[in-house]
C-alpha cells in the first residue's frame, strides 16, 4: 500500500465515523436548518475526496510500478528517531506542567531537550546548557508574570 492509500483510508474511516455520529445531533426549532446539515456536507465531501485519493494512488501505482520510486537518490536518512524523542519529551513536559508548575517543569524541559538534541561533550557545553535552561525560564517567567499580565501555571504538587 502506498502512502496516499494509507492516509486516504485513515481519513475515510475517521470522516465516516464522524458522519455516523452526526445522527445523534439534536436540532433546535429556532434554526430550521439542522446543526447536523453542514457537518454532514463537510464530512461527506471529505469521505468522497479521500476515496478519490485512494483511487488515484492505486491507479498511479498500476500505471507506474513502484520500481521507479526508490531510484531517487536520498540525501540523508531522515532522523525519525530524533523526531519521536522530541515529541515524547514535549508530551511529558505538557502533561507535567500543571503538576510541577511552570518554573520547575520548564527548567527541566529545556535541560532535557537540549541534552537529547545535542549531548554536551565539554564542560563549557554543560554550562551553556544549564545557563540556557535557567535564564530562559527566568526571563520568560518574569516577563510574562511581571509585565505582560499572563499568569503561568502554578504546580499542583509543588505549589510553586
Amino acid at each position, binding site marked *: 500500500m502506498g*502512502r*496516499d492509500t*494509507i*492516509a*486516504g483510508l485513515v*481519513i475515510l474511516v475517521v*470522516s465516516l465515523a*464522524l458522519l455516523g*455520529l452526526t445522527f445523534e*445531533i439534536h436540532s*433546535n426549532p*429556532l*434554526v*430550521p436548518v439542522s*446543526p*447536523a446539515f*453542514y*457537518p454532514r456536507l*463537510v*464530512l461527506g*465531501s*471529505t469521505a468522497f*475526496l*479521500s476515496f*478519490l*485519493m485512494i483511487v*488515484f494512488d492505486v491507479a498511479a501505482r498500476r500505471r507506474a510500478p513502484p520500481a521507479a520510486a526508490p531510484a531517487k537518490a536520498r540525501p*540523508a536518512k*531522515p*532522523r*525519525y528517531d*530524533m*523526531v519521536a524523542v*522530541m*515529541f515524547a519529551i*514535549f*508530551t511529558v*513536559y*505538557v502533561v507535567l*506542567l500543571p503538576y510541577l508548575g511552570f518554573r520547575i517543569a*520548564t527548567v527541566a*524541559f*529545556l535541560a532535557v*531537550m*537540549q541534552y*537529547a*538534541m*545535542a549531548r554536551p561533550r565539554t564542560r563549557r557545553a554543560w554550562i*551553556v546548557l544549564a545557563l*540556557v535552561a535557567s535564564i*530562559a*525560564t527566568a526571563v*520568560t517567567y518574569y*516577563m*510574562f508574570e511581571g509585565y*505582560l*499580565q*499572563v*499568569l*503561568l501555571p502554578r504546580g499542583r504538587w509543588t505549589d510553586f
Partner: protein
Amino acid sequence: MFDLLGAALVNIVHVKYLLPLFLGTLAGVIGGALPGVTVTMTIIVALPFTFGLDPLQGLAAMAGLYVGGSAGGLVTAVLLGIPGTPSTVATTFDGYPMGRNGEPGRALWLGIWGSFFGGMLGGVFLIFTTKPLAEFALAFGPWEYFSLFVLALSMVAGLVETSLVKALVSGFIGLIVTVLGNDPMLGAPRLTLGIPFLEGGIPFLPVLIGVFAFAQIMSEVEKSGGAGAMTQPANSDANLKVSQLKVIWEILSRPFLLVWSAIIGVWIGVLPAIGGSAANIMSYDQAKKFSKHPEKFGTGIPEGIIASEAGNNANVGGSLVTIMAFGIPGDAVTAVMLGAMTIHGIQPGPLFISQHPQIAYGIFAAYIVAHPIMVLILGVGARWAMRIMTITKSTLFPIVLVLCVIGAFALDNSMDTVYVLLVFGVIGYLMVKAGFPLAPFILGAILGDQIEINLIRSIMTDPNPWLFVTRPISGLLLLAAVLSVVFSLWQHKRTQRRLAAAATPPSDEDIIDF
C-alpha cells in the same frame, strides 16, 4: 482620512507604540534572517508577548514583525545564498551571485532599499484602498461571503504544487476541525467525542501554532538530528560598504520595474492565502519576462534583486488590506494577527475601519513607520545578524517550544489549549509526512465557522440555492473558484509532463510556507 492618518502617525511615534513596533521589527528581521524559521513561526513566538499589551501596541508589534520578516530574509539570501524565509527564494537567484562577484554590499543594499520602496508602494495601496474595499464589502451578503470563502479555499488548494485532491482533503480536514465541538449558530454541543472541553469548539490559534511550529521544527530536526547550528558561519569580513545614494538611484531609475513588482506583490497579497513566496517569485519572473536581456538574470544583476524584494514587501501591504476590509487572512501571518485582534475583541471586517479608526489607522501608521526602522536595523545589524545565525538548534528549538506553550496557555489561561497545541502538533507533522500541504488546512480551520454561518444564514434568508449563482458578485466569485481549480488542473498536467521529462521531484519547502 489624512488627518486621521496624520494623527495616527504622530501617535505611533510615542514610546508606548514605538517600542513594541521597534521590537517587533527587530524580531521579524532576526526570524526572517534565520533559515528554517519563517515569519509565521516568528509571529507565533511573538504572539504571547502581545496579550498583555493594548490592542494597538500588539498590532503595531505584529505589523513591524511582518515588515521586518519580509525583508530580513534577504540578508541570508544575499550573503549565504540560502533563503532566510521562503519569501526570499528568488532573491538568492541574483543576490548571491552579485555578492560573490565582489559586491555583497551593493546586493544587500539593493535588497534593503528595494524592500523599502516596494513596501512603501504597498503602503500607498493599503491606505487608499482599504476603506473603499470595506465599503464594497458591505454589499456582501451571506451568499457573497460564502462564495468568497469557497474561492479562497479553492485558490489555495489550486496553488499547491502537489496533488489537487490532497490539497482539497487538507482543506476539508481544516473544516472538520471547526465542525467538532459546537455549532456556531446557537452554540449547542455537537460531535464533542465525549470531551467536555470540546463543547466550546476547538480554538483556532493553538491549532495554528501547533501545526506550524512542529511541522517546521521537526522538518529541521529530521534533516540532521538535533545537533548543529542553523547555518554555517558566513565569511564575516565581506565588505558591505556602499554608496547609499548610488544604490537608491539604481532602484529609482527603474520606476517601471519597481512599480510593476509592487503591483504584483500587492495583488498576490490581496488574494486570500497565497503569501510572500509567490509574490517574490512572480515579481522576479515578470521582471525577467519584461527585461531586454533576460539571459542575464541569475548572474547577479540589480533588476533581479529589486523585483523580488519589492514584490515580497509590497505583498505585506496587500495582505493587510484583505484582513482589514474583509476579515480574511491573506496568509498565516495575518491569520495570527486576526487571532490577536479577536483576543482583544476586535473583529476585522467591513465595519472595522469605521468602528475602530484609531486601530485601523494605527496599523497603517505602524506599517509605514516600520519601513525606515527596518532599513535602520538591517543597515546596522546585517553583519551582526550573520552571527546570530550560528545559534545551535538545540538552544533555539526548545525555547521556541516553551514560547508556543505559553502562547497557547495564555489564550484563556487553561491547559486545555496547550493539549490542543500538542495534538495538532502531531497531526500537522503527520500531515506533512503524508504529503498534505498545510496552507489549505489552516485556511479551512480559520474559515470553517464563517462558511457554516453564512451558508445557514443564506438558506434562512431565502431557501433558493440558485441565489449563490444568480447573485452577480456571488456568481462571479464561484466562477472564479471553478476557474482556479480548472487552471490548476491544467497546470498540474503541464508540470507533470515536464516533470516526467526532467524527473526532478518538487521540493517540500512550499508545503510549509503559507
